[in-house]
Each structure stands twice: as structure tokens, then as C-alpha cells.
């Protein structure tokens, strides 16, 4: 087991290196003159030259890449090009916000998606099932930026129940959680429902029924256990999506997270900021995939026996 995890973690290294090289190359190939963007309208040619020299832009491409990676690997992602502040300090300040947003969202997605999906499947074609399916379709089609603004207008301005902007307390996160989880909860419901429907018709469920097992036992032990595998896969995919969706949600609710940091970096052509943002997301998704795979081993005895061998 330890060997398996170590192996998977080692595979992450070339993946991240590849991502870093790819993103660095794309940023380096952009036709923009970085110095004149950073220095603003009143920059002089001398000022631009000085800026380029200070930021090592006159060096050859590979040298720049290795310098950057050397800094990054020794724990120093450098200084932001647009704001002259330490990226390490700023980035660390922004991680908790994004973590709170994604963690809350995924909890909400599971708490809502799994039970509703199961009931929907068991009571197929009932009113509950029909309403759920319709709602799920509606929620998937609502763009997050629109839903977020609507929620602000209703629950912050009109009813005055919840704050509209910023982080800090749990209250601040309620609207962002709902906004971000809406589409994903719908996805979860649909996935759980269809998986459960498949399993309900499986032979072993029929056998359990024939043996006279109680309905609750059938659902929890026989059906859900077997449905877990595809559901865990969906949770993994959703976690990846939340990180992407966080950019929009953070912007609407003025949450100081990794997403807005990355966006601001892209707008201002801030190479070190974009790099750290992209690498962070890539690393988190890599680790999530690993966790999901480990979960598979616990859920599926067939996989476990393979690993033990």
C-alpha cells in the first residue's frame, strides 16, 4: 500500500514539471512587452530596459525557466511582477478562503446529491423523482454568475439575511456555497440516480429480495455499497470542477481566494502569479485523484487484492 502511494506520488512530479514547463512556455511566447505593461503609460525605453534586466527577461528562455524552478523548489516563488509583493505571503493568505469554499461545496453536494439521488431511483417515476429530475436539469443550466447575483439580490439586499461580500464568518460562505454547488449537486443527483437504477435490477439485489432481506438493508448494504465506486469518481471530478468554478464564485462574492489571484495575474500579465496559481490547482487535482484511487482500493476488494499482490 505504502509502495503504491509512493509510486503514485512520484508520478505526480513529472506531471507537475510538465505543467510548469508548458505554462511557462506559453507565458514566455505571448507577444506582449511585459515591461511596458507593468510600468504603465509613462514608461521610458530606459525604464523598460532596467525593468527587463531586473526581472531577468534578457536571459535565454531555458535559463529563465531553470531560475524560476530553482526558486520555486527552494520554497521561494518570487515577487509578483505587477505588485512587487512576496507571492509566498500573498498566496498563503488566499488558500484558506478557497479551501473553505471548495470543502463546503463538496460537503453540500454529497449531503444533497446522494440521498436525493437514492430516493429518486427507488421511487422511480414518482412525483418526487419527476420534480427532482426537472430541478436537476434547471440547476445544471443556470450559469453560476447569474445564480450568484440573483442570490445576492434576494438574500442580501431584499431580505437582508446574509452578507453579500467578503469572507470571515460561516454566514459569508453560505451564498457562495449554494452558488458553486448548485450545478454540481444536480450532477451528483443524476449520477447517483442512474447508478442506483442499474444496480436495483442486478441479480444480487433480486437474490437479496428473494431471501427476504429488509428494504433498508438492501439499499444500504447491497445497493449503495456497489454504487459507491462510480459515485466516488464523480466526487473526484466535481472537486476538480469546484477549483475552476471558484474563480467565478470568488469574483462575484469578492472572496479573496486563489481563483481571483490567478485571474488578476492573468489580467496583469503577472508570470510568477499565474505560474503559482496554475501549479497549485494542478497539484491539488493530482492529489485528489490519488485520494480517489486510494478510496477505490477500500471500496473494491478486487482492486485491493491486486495491490496486495
Amino acid at each position, binding site marked *: 500500500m505504502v509502495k503504491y502511494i509512493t509510486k503514485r506520488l512520484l508520478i505526480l512530479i513529472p506531471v507537475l514539471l510538465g505543467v510548469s514547463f508548458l505554462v511557462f512556455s506559453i507565458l514566455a511566447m505571448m507577444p506582449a512587452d511585459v515591461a511596458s505593461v507593468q510600468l504603465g503609460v509613462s514608461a521610458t525605453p530606459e525604464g523598460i530596459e532596467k525593468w527587463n534586466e531586473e526581472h531577468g527577461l534578457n536571459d535565454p528562455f531555458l535559463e529563465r525557466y531553470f531560475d524560476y524552478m530553482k526558486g520555486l523548489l527552494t520554497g521561494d516563488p518570487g515577487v509578483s511582477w505587477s505588485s*512587487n*509583493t512576496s507571492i509566498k505571503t500573498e498566496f498563503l*493568505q488566499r488558500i484558506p478562503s478557497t479551501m473553505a469554499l471548495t470543502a463546503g461545496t463538496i460537503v453540500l453536494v454529497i449531503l444533497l446529491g446522494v440521498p436525493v439521488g437514492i430516493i429518486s431511483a427507488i421511487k422511480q417515476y414518482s412525483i418526487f423523482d419527476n420534480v427532482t429530475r426537472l430541478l436537476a436539469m434547471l440547476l445544471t443550466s443556470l450559469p453560476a454568475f447569474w445564480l450568484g447575483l440573483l442570490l445576492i439580490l434576494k438574500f442580501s439586499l431584499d431580505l437582508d439575511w446574509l452578507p453579500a*461580500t467578503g469572507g470571515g464568518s460561516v454566514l459569508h460562505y453560505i451564498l457562495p456555497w449554494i452558488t458553486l454547488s448548485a450545478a454540481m449537486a444536480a450532477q451528483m443527483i443524476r449520477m447517483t440516480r442512474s447508478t442506483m437504477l442499474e444496480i436495483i435490477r442486478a441479480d444480487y439485489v433480486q437474490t437479496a429480495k428473494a431471501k427476504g432481506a429488509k428494504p433498508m438493508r438492501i439499499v444500504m448494504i447491497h445497493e449503495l455499497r456497489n454504487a459507491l465506486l462510480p459515485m466516488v469518481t464523480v466526487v473526484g471530478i466535481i472537486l476538480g470542477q469546484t477549483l475552476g468554478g471558484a474563480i467565478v464564485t470568488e469574483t*462575484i462574492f469578492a472572496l479573496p481566494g486563489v481563483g481571483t489571484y490567478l485571474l488578476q495575474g492573468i489580467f496583469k500579465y503577472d508570470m510568477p502569479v499565474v505560474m503559482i496559481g496554475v501549479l497549485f490547482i494542478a497539484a491539488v487535482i493530482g492529489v485528489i485523484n490519488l485520494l480517489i484511487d486510494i478510496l477505490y482500493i477500500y471500496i473494491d476488494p478486487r482492486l485491493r487484492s491486486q495491490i496486495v499482490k
Partner: protein
Amino acid sequence: MKKILSTALALLLIISCTACGSKDNGTTQQDNSSRTDVKYGLTSDIASLDPVYTTDQISTILYRQLYDTLIVKDKDGNWAPKLAESWSLSDDEMTYTFHLRRDVKLHDGSNMTAEDVAYSINRSIDSAATGASMTNMKDCTVVDEYTVEVHMTAPFAGTYETLSTYGRVSSANNTDYESSPIGTGPYKFVSRNSGDSIELVAFEDYYLGEAAIKDLTFKIITDPTTQIAALQKGEIDFLTHCSLTAKDTVESDSHLVWQQTLFRGNNWLSFCQNKPPFDNILARKAAQYAIDKDAVLVGGSEGLGVTMNTVFPSSVPCSPEDDYTPPYSYDVEKAKAYLEQYKAETGVSSVDISILAPDTAMYLYPAITIEGMLREVGFNVTTEQIDRSTYWSSVYAGNYQLAVTGTSWPVNDCDGNYLYFYSTSGQHYFMAFNKDMDKILDEARVTSDPAARKQCYTEVQKIIDDEAICVPLLQPANAVAYNADLKGVDKQNDIYCHFVYDWSWQ
């Protein structure tokens, strides 16, 4: 099927009810009279707390609270003392002498001396961002503990403007501007949470007395709709760089004030003269006559602002704008005639051009409006929209045919346009290289008589029109919105130049 349909309709009804629920009161009424804090909404994060790091407007809002300057312009447009109590200019206009106040304390509690002032101004001269705007300024030297001299390489009439903009005084002993800036202003730095907020507190030893607003928090909200929602909800009290589309919402809310001023900046349509068709004056003239500026104002700035006859807005000292009659007017027939003449002269049958535009509203919307006008007179036009960084580098490098560009007058002096129109300057993206214009721009720079300078800039505009170098377009409006109980907000000031020191709650 019927069941599903009825459920769907019921749901739709519920959602639409939620969406357009009654909105009788926007802002929650509360008693503000005893408050001593202000939450100031910013539309993007600041770049730096270092006063010479950037010329960006959002950062400038903070600089104004943290750092004072030697002099300041009063309500009548005269120079008034601030850190300097008196000043004089030598007869050859090469040396400015400033006598400093003796009671000014820095945020670390020490006395401000000539050392700090000279250090700050020299830093500004050496800075890559502000250095180019410190026109003709050589250095600043200490004469005695409370006197400094600013030496020039050549006279420049806009020096007081430059010093009141970029001569922000900070401590000479400061090493870390980002986490502990030491200034002379009415507010001192407390903390900064990247992307979220910046906190300042009133400086108790401020030489003009402690500010009425004690706690000043800047809150960063980037989404325009959320900004207005936060303002209506009272999560912020003041919003800078307000989206013009929010005008009706703010004005219909009795607890808010909409304060609209002209943006201290203007835009123009630039022709790049290093490639066809705009290397030929006939094509440039055709475009000049094709532009309906009133329509550009509507399309480009919601109809809020003014159209321009020159490239110098009338709010900038010595501007010829108010007395200038432009030789061009909106005339489709003339435009078509010039374009036909161009086609005949060069032998081309179709004039294909592309307008380059960035993703920023101030330049993109006018560009889109202009595309239609040029098509109407016979140009074959496309608009190419690219990200703002690539846009500016392409323009500066002369890799474009047509682009809406402009300036925001960081230093409020007509000399600001030197940068764009002088042949050898870094940002001469017109590729026009006119020697006569260079001569007049140089002359205007060293002339001190306002009437003579205005004459110079009139000449500059005449050359711009004779050669059809660019089409002056708009001075757009911009706005701030704030809580109606907030008193003392300067009604005329540029939106990024407000002093929170003057404010109080009623």
C-alpha cells in the same frame, strides 16, 4: 406528461417570483451619525504601497491618504502649502526652494526633515514608473534641516503639478514599503489582506490635527453588480470607479449619492503611418470625416461625458480645447470622396483595415462604434479584440492600423502628451515623426507664460489636424457613489484623488 408540464410551470413561477421580489428599499436605513469608520470600495487590488512603484489610479487612492506632498492645489486652482510652508523659484527658473513646516511627524513618530523630502523626491525621479513624468527634474538637495532645493535641467512650467502628484513624502529610513510604509499623511498603515482589504487608522500626530474618520478600511470588490449590491447593503460606504450603467440604480436609492465628474483623461482614434492605407493622408482624411463623435459618445460612454476637439481636455491647464475650431466635421460624402481619391491614387479596389481593441470598456466600446461608421463610408473593416497586455505592446510597437488609444493625465499638464506626439519618445506609436511638432512641444515645455503655452498647444493641435495624425474623440464621464450621510466629499475632485481626511458622518 401533463404532470411534468404543470410541475415545470409551477417551478418557473416560483423562480420568477424570487427574481423580481419586491424591492422597496435598497439601502438599509441606519443611524450613521456616531460612526467614525469608513469602508471604501475599490474595484481592483492595489499594486503596491510604495509611493513610487506605480502610476495606477487605484493605488493612487491609497497613496493620497498615506503620503502628503509639499504643496496642494486649493479649490480656486492656486497652489497652497502642505508640507512646505513657503517656496520660491529662482529667476532662471532652474531652482525651486521649499521651506518645510517644522511640526510634521512621520508615522514612526520621528520628525520629518529635509532629508526625508529630498530622499523621497530623488526616489521618484529614479523610479521606472514615475521618473519619466518628473519632467526636466535633475535632483533634490538638502540645504538645511528644513529647506530643500529642487534643481532642473531646463525650466518646466508644470513642475508644481509634478511635485504635487509624484512628490509624495515618506521616511528616508524606510526599508519595507509593502508591510510597514512610513509616510506623513493623515492615515497610517495597519494591515493588508491580499485581494480582500487594506486597513488604515487615523494618525494621531498628524500636523493638521487628527482626522474625523478614525478607521479607514479599503475593500476590494471586482464584480460591478456586486459592488452596487455591497453599497446598497452598507457593506461599503463609498465606491470608486463606479460602473456608468449603475447610474439609475444609485440615483433611485435615496440613501445614496451619485457623483459624476469628467474623467481626467481622453481618447483618440490613432492611425499607424508605417503601413498602408494610413501612410497616405487621403485615407486618414477619409476616416476623419467618417467619425460621428456624438454617436461615439453614446456608444462608447453611455452618452455621459463630452466630445473633444483637441487631444487636450479643458480640465488640463493651458489646454486649447475650449477655443479651438476643428477643421473636420462629420461628413459622409466628403469621407467617401477622399476614400475614392485614395483608391484612384493607389490603384486599389478595396481598402481592408482592422481596428485593434483591448478588453477594457474605455477603448473597446468606442472602437466597436467606429467600426460601423468606417464601413458606412466604404472601408472594409474588422475589429480585432485581444487581451490588454498584448494590445498595448502591439500599439507601442506600431503593429496596428487603427486603434482607439488615449491618456489619463497622471500629471495634470498639457506636457503629458509629449510622450505620444514627440518623434523620439518611447510611446510615439503614430509613426508620424513630425519635426515641426517636436520643435513646438520642446518650446512649450520650457515656456512659463500660460498664454504662450496655450498658443503652443494650439499649434500642436493644428499640426495634428493638418497631418490628420489622430481623431480626438471623448472625455468620458466617471463616477463615485456613496452613502448620503457621508459629508465633506469634494464634489469636483478627480475620482481617484479624494482625501478621506475631509470627510465625516452626519
